[in-house]
């Protein structure tokens, strides 16, 4: 966040697509833009590339002003030295795969272009398909040509709009590794749009959470994932265990804040931002829920034990997701019910073999500990229906 900052963007727009985005991306930094479908990720990349002209704001790259509405600067895309991979590929239909790539190699001497393009084809694992036209390629193959073309230009900034969405997991992993390697070899800002949160976490230094054109939060993947600023971000980050509670007391010396959730008292991560008595949202990632084994005691059982009935056990490969309904200690009739449905559902995962050995598939009761270091408090928001 200082001198070596290479891309600095601030956009405001109301029409046709609302934007309220502030983004910084340093050289060698890989930033992931995540947000629901239609939240403006592509629009932001297009603004950086110079393909749309936002109403207001500025885009500065490497001390060069690309866009500045106040001074009426709008550099055309040709001069911006961007490598842009389009979400819908936008390959040149009349050029074969190889020439689609050489088309972006204008900065190299003509002789070396073919060689470099071939090298890029290899990098995206498309050797042998050099002379195919886009219409003769499969979806994933086209996507990789588009990726190679974006990398080709020797860009000052790399913009990738869902670069791996159409390839199989094996290829995807290889391409992600290529990208990770690239990051260390060329020190430019990289912005990646992705719907795959694991991918974002694995690849990105920083995540920007976007909603309706507004950058809600940015930070390291684990920060955004585990300490979202609001339930909205939490939802974006795929959190399922989001609840409402009231603050009971703070115990800064122990690093905890006590909250009351449906009559149970829970120890949460200390957070002084919320006053005693305030209604807050809180979340717990499934990774911070420890199941009590039935056969023997387990560590951490003293932390926030919660009992409930198993509702569903779903095994997906190596992990098993368990959904439980919380048994509430007592239902005080006079007290306002803070839960939405009055019935709180908690989800957590265990490894499939643990599930198997604990015979979790049988319905029944289960006790879990909610590790207090995973309980994160957020301001209570009004439910946003249009998600």
């Amino acid at each position, binding site marked *: 966040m200082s001198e070596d900052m290479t891309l600095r963007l601030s956009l405001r727009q109301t029409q046709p697509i609302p934007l309220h985005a502030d983004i910084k991306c340093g050289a060698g930094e890989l930033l992931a833009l995540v947000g629901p479908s239609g939240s403006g990720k592509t629009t932001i990349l297009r603004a950086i590339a110079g393909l749309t002209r936002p109403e207001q704001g500025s885009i500065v790259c490497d001390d060069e002003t690309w866009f500045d509405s106040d001074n009426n600067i709008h550099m055309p895309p*040709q001069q911006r030295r961007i*490598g*842009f991979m*389009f979400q819908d590929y936008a390959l*040149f239909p*009349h050029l074969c795969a190889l020439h689609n790539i050489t088309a972006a190699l*204008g900065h190299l001497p003509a002789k070396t272009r073919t060689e470099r393009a071939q090298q890029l084809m290899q990098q995206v694992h498309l050797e042998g398909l050099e002379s195919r036209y886009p*219409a003769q390629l499969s979806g994933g193959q086209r996507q990789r040509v588009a990726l190679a073309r974006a990398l080709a*230009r020797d860009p000052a900034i790399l913009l990738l709009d869902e670069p791996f969405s159409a390839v199989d997991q094996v290829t995807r992993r290889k391409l992600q590794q290529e990208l990770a390697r690239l990051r260390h070899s060329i020190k430019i800002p990289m912005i990646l749009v992705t719907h795959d949160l694991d991918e974002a976490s694995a690849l990105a230094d920083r995540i920007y959470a976007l909603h309706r054109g507004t950058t809600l939060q940015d930070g390291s993947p684990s920060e955004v994932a585990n300490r979202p600023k609001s339930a909205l971000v939490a939802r974006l980050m795929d959190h399922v265990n989001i609840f409402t509670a009231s603050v009971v007391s703070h115990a800064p010396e122990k690093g905890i804040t006590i909250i009351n959730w449906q009559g149970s008292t829970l120890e949460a991560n200390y957070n002084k931002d919320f006053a005693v008595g305030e209604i807050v949202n809180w979340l717990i990632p499934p990774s911070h829920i420890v199941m009590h084994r039935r056969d023997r005691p387990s560590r951490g059982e003293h932390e926030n034990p919660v009992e409930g009935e198993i509702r569903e056990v779903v095994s997906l490969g190596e992990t098993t997701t368990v959904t439980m309904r919380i048994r509430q200690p007592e239902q005080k009739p006079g007290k306002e019910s803070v839960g939405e449905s009055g019935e709180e559902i908690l989800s957590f995962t265990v490894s499939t073999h643990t599930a198997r050995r604990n015979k979790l598939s049988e319905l029944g009761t289960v006790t879990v500990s909610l590790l207090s270091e995973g309980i994160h408090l957020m301001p209570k928001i009004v439910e946003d229906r249009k998600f």
Partner: protein
Amino acid sequence: MDTLALELSLRLAFWTCVVLLPVSIFLGRLLAWSQFTGKGFVEAAIALPLVLPPTVLGYYLLVSMGNTSAIGQFYADLTGRNLVFSFDGLLLASIIFNLPFAVQPMQRAFEAIPNNVREAAWCCGMSRLRALWRIELPLAWPGLISALALTFAHTLGEFGVVLMVGGNIQGETQTIAIAIYDRVQAFDNPAAGTMSALLLVFSFVTIGSVYMLSHRRSHAHV
């Protein structure tokens, strides 16, 4: 066969195509990609040369390009030659009345290029000229071929304007169309028939070959 007239016609058709190519690319792109109020009327204006009978259009061109006209004077001052009754005058007239045939197909062809393909060209760092040359023109290729074929054929066949502006001077402004017309007027049906047949065969082969080549070119990526 009147080879002198045929040669002249071909020369005229060739140069008309050569001049109209950049003009129609420029106008076609402009009309395809810029939106302005009254655009429809600009397009209509381009089609107007078609509306007047060729001889009448020719007459008005003759008057406005004649030696006493501003254009004619300007041209005479510049080159020391007359614009009317010369090849240059024919060419100018030919360009004007072929404009709609050249611009319309080009405009449609440019309109058919997906926006994001053009954007991708810019994002590949191509200058506007390079994008035009490597991306837009190849994609507008079928329209370009249509434009050229129509212009070529129409120049060969047009005689109203050419007769008026050129004056039917053998070897200078007598095109093959006028020569055939003369034969027909002189009731020299065998000669007219032979010339017509040869012209048709020649055009058929030429235009057909151009189409075939252009198909081969665009086949690959369909």
